[in-house]
């Protein structure tokens, strides 16, 4: 499943319209955490991150961890500087009003997994 299909089935808003979701690669893995040190250490490459952490550093961490997209839960939205940086770095930002638990549950149902090992 690519990001367009994923965003569509979860009803996610694309905060980085500069990025064409339809052109994303297949998403097979994800991670959920609000501690960016933890994301750096443990997020699977090419995956999506579910978080309520909206600090600008989430973008640099996503680049380091080679993530495809960040899903902000609970209606949390980053500021414009963070959105611009994400678009520049090719990290897709998606937003949901649902709590992280609900989002992760749906992603798991759709076949995404937490660990490549």
């Amino acid at each position, binding site marked *: 499943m690519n990001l367009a299909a994923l965003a569509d089935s979860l009803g996610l808003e694309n905060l980085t319209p500069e990025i064409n979701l339809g052109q994303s690669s297949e998403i097979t893995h994800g991670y959920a955490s609000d501690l*960016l*040190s*933890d994301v750096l250490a443990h997020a699977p490459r090419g995956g999506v991150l579910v978080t309520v*952490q909206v*600090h600008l550093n989430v973008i640099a961490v996503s680049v*380091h961890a080679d993530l495809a997209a960040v899903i902000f839960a609970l209606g949390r939205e980053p500021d414009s500087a963070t959105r611009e940086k994400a678009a520049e770095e090719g990290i897709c930002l998606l937003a949901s009003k649902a709590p992280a638990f609900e989002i992760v549950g749906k992603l798991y149902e759709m076949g995404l997994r937490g660990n490549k090992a």
Partner: protein
Amino acid sequence: MRPMAADLHVHTALSPCADDDMTPQAIVMAAIAAEIDIIAVCDHNSAENTGAVQEAARSFAGDLFGVIAGMEITTAEEAHIVALFPDVESAMNASDEVACHLPEGLTGVRKYGNQYVMDATGEVIREVDALLSWASDLTVSQTVTLIHKHGGLAVAAHVDRPSFSIISQLGFMPEDAEFDAVEISAAGAKDGRATEFEALGYPIIVASDAHFPDNIGDGKALFHIDSPVFSEVALAFKGVGNRSIQLA
């Protein structure tokens, strides 16, 4: 100029997690017994006991022992930032401003511990009902700006620790906040971890983050300064006039 031992992160009985025996007198006596020359009083999100500790210090030791009025602010990202202010008045102004950014409705949470505002003798003047250690809605960058606006210094607290530190919460030091120094915990310093953070390019201090009298001085830095006061500490952070900071 002479070396002065500084423990710039000490809680009082106002912090819910700190011992009720952290009275102004007990703190000053424990610090002097630990051969500390200057401390900073840094309760969670409040500076209300800073004046009392300064008064206790003056009556015990006059100008020989210094007490900086500070605070440990919890940011929206749940990172702790130690704020050091020039005097009690500016600390209280910052404290009042932070109070407007704490969550409402978290009152009566006594199970987290007592929050005593005390006078210099340790008499309880009143108890703070709203939980002080909760996260404010100020971001890291807004918190550092607030501290600087009130003439203070912003120190990233216990950056070596896996919880409530800038690095645990944000992965690395953010570019949108100009810190004046970073603090290593007493445990981290004992494990020789201070050198890991030299590459960050900030002045490094070690502090105890003491919540009990016996822990005051467990973490300290040697400041080569003229006198144990805020302005000298501020100059040492900038390395002005041969002032320096040395880790034991």
